[in-house]
């Protein structure tokens, strides 16, 4: 019996076109555009100037506060300008533009390090390393990881959960990482267990990645305290609340954190980045990105430097096919459609999805027929049709009473609505307004 979360969820077609494609390493891009706000929290503050030469891995923007992160140069080169570049929403945001120095060997040096299993740092040093090296949640949330490592004295933690679920269709970055870097990830898990003082860890993997499940089961030593759990394929299994519920049958309380039920969740990509930081002194300057789409010539997974423009990636997969109507950063359920291909890859970019004409259009919205499909699929037990209605009528206080703030924005409601209503768009807006109301009153 595969574990799963009991309420809600949908099963969109998986389309994991690139699950058998090994991760390719691209040559460093000619120019990188590194945004200073790639994480949840306060944007980083720029500490370099125009015309300054930076080495690979050098800090180019310092953390702006506790819930913030350092940003490091993904390439060695010259800072050409501090300009505003389009982000995933089409708004121009501050970036540091670096022209890669082709002659600097460190840019093209092979970056494969031998496996280092011995953990020499103590928990405090591990926390400092994670904090200094700009590690954020690479599952897409980009929450600064050191905040999750710092557990207050009075909080009890008994389990570390590793999120290898990757429930979004099309994306295979985490899958390939688990297959190719399994041993490093296991060391990373041990590092985290050491830093958090827990003796139990569970790696949750969806059942459509049987090879990864088998590989981990083979590699994990008996007494390590690390369990591998296969999960039923259901979206959004990768949501941390759903994951905790499925694996441990504990429900994170409303408006609470997994820490409230003694758990901390980290994505496998983040774990690998922590391994690199702690064992090999490498800051976060690259990540795995899946570039995929049904009509692409050569959909692939890549190791990509932060700041690489998406146009570079699309060139590597054979160019943008004709009749492409939409290019999405992320997966088809929660991703954002891009305005142009100048957008750079950030710490939160897990994939680029190229959608052809027929599939790209949304249906014309009609009246809500109160069929209740959205209520059936909402994993948080909300009523999306009601939340959209309240938002349309600007009744944000009532929407807050109806728990609109607990929405995890998974998009299952919009996916099933037979009247093609843009439920998630309205709910996102309603959440923003309800949050404002809360902060005004509080």
């Amino acid at each position, binding site marked *: 019996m595969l574990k799963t979360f009991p*309420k809600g969820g949908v099963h969109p077609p998986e389309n994991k076109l690139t699950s058998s494609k090994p991760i390719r390493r691209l040559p460093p891009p000619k120019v990188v555009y590194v945004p200073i706000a790639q994480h949840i929290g306060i944007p980083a503050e720029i500490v370099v100037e125009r015309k300054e030469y930076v080495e690979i891995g050098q800090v180019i923007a310092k953390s702006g506060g506790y819930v913030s992160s350092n940003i490091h140069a993904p390439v060695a080169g010259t800072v050409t300008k501090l300009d505003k570049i389009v982000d995933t929403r089409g708004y121009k945001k501050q970036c540091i533009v670096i022209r890669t120095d082709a002659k600097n060997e460190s840019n093209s040096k092979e970056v494969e390090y031998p496996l280092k299993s011995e953990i020499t740092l103590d928990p405090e040093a591990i926390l400092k390393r994670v904090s200094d090296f700009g590690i954020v949640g690479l599952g897409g949330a980009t929450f600064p990881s050191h905040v999750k490592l710092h557990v207050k004295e009075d909080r*009890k933690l008994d389990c570390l959960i590793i999120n290898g679920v990757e429930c979004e269709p099309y994306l295979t970055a985490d899958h390939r990482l688990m297959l190719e870097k399994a041993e490093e990830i296991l060391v990373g898990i041990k590092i985290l267990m050491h830093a958090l003082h827990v003796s139990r860890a569970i790696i949750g993997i969806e059942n459509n990645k049987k090879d990864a499940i088998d590989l981990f089961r083979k590699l994990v030593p008996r007494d390590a305290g690390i369990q591998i759990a296969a999960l039923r394929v259901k979206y959004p299994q990768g949501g941390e609340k759903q994951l905790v519920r499925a694996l441990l049958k504990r429900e994170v309380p409303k408006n609470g954190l997994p820490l409230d*039920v*003694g758990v901390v969740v980290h994505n496998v990509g983040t774990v690998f980045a922590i391994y690199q930081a702690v064992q090999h002194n490498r800051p976060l300057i690259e990540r795995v990105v899946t570039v995929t789409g049904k009509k692409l010539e050569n959909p692939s997974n890549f190791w990509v430097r932060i700041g690489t423009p998406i146009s570079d990636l699309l060139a590597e997969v054979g160019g943008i096919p004709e009749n492409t109507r939409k290019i999405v950063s992320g997966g088809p359920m929660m991703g954002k459609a891009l305005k142009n291909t100048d957008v750079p890859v950030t710490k939160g970019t897990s994939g680029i999805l190229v959608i052809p004409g027929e599939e790209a259009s949304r249906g014309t919205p009609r009246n809500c027929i109160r069929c209740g499909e959205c209520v059936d699929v909402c994993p948080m037990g909300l009523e999306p049709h009601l939340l959209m209605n309240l938002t349309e009528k600007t009744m944000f206080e009532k929407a807050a009473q109806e728990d609109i703030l607990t929405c995890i924005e998974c998009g299952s409601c919009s996916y099933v609505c037979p009247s093609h209503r843009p439920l998630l768009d309205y709910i996102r807006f309603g959440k923003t307004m309800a949050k404002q109301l809360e902060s005004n009153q509080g």
Partner: protein
Amino acid sequence: MYDVVIALIPAFLVSIYLFGISAFITTAAAVISCLLFEYLIQKFLLKTNVTIGDGSGLITGILLAFNLPAGLPIWMVVVGSFMAIGVAKLSFGGLGFNIFNPALVGRVFLLVSFPVQMTLWPLARTDYAGAVDAVTGATTLGMIKDGIQYGDTMSQISSRIPSSMEMLLGTTGGSLGEMSALALIIGGIYLIIRKVITWHIPVTVLATIAIMTGIFWWIDPEQYANPLIHVLAGGAILGAFYMATDLVTSPVTRKGMIIFAIGIGVITVVIRLFGSYPEGISFAILIMNAFVPLINSYFKPRRFGSRIKAKIM
């Protein structure tokens, strides 16, 4: 939407077999006038988008026709359509905004306004090769109600009313859609398989009717008909599978649906046994439609993380 039309085809074919061309005419008149009113009102009175293509007008027309006796004067059918579409649906705001089931509003309006013609039930012909029958007869429930009021006991009445098999297959008197329980059930199962509706409302309505009438029948079998008759006769199956399950006018959560269905069952039985009408399901559904917003407020899905029995450390 069109799945509902497909599900009603078996019952429609039965009604044509039993009532001949007049069944077809009544249905066609209802459908055409519903669509026509929707088009005219939306285009010229309300000046909004015309939505006759979404199938809801078509279904309202068919269901309205299924609630009427074959051979009802066409102009009455048209008036019923006007009430269904113009008053029950569009004046509330169109699809998705109506509180009451439009087809039932049309039917009840006609019943109350033209009680005589609305209870003239042409006898179904049992052989296809015959000429159109102009003789009218009573429905099963009508015969039971009249009989009891007259003073007969159930054993005396049961020789006069159709057998269960006849009601199942559909050779009794009644409105177009009330004929073949079997055809209607087949269509209902189709809808459940296609995930257009769930089993909760139909099964609960029929179960409530069966249980409640069963209790009364067990207490006094001469005063009250047995539950099988109650489930098969009249508009119970039509109402349970097609009218009460209307998405817009039924609750949103499963728990709410069950409460709704129980309410319909109870009110139907009360009207049937103690009211002056022989059939009560149309009124029962309309009354419960009014309670749906209240049901929706009270029966909300459980919020994730609301059970504090989760271990908080």
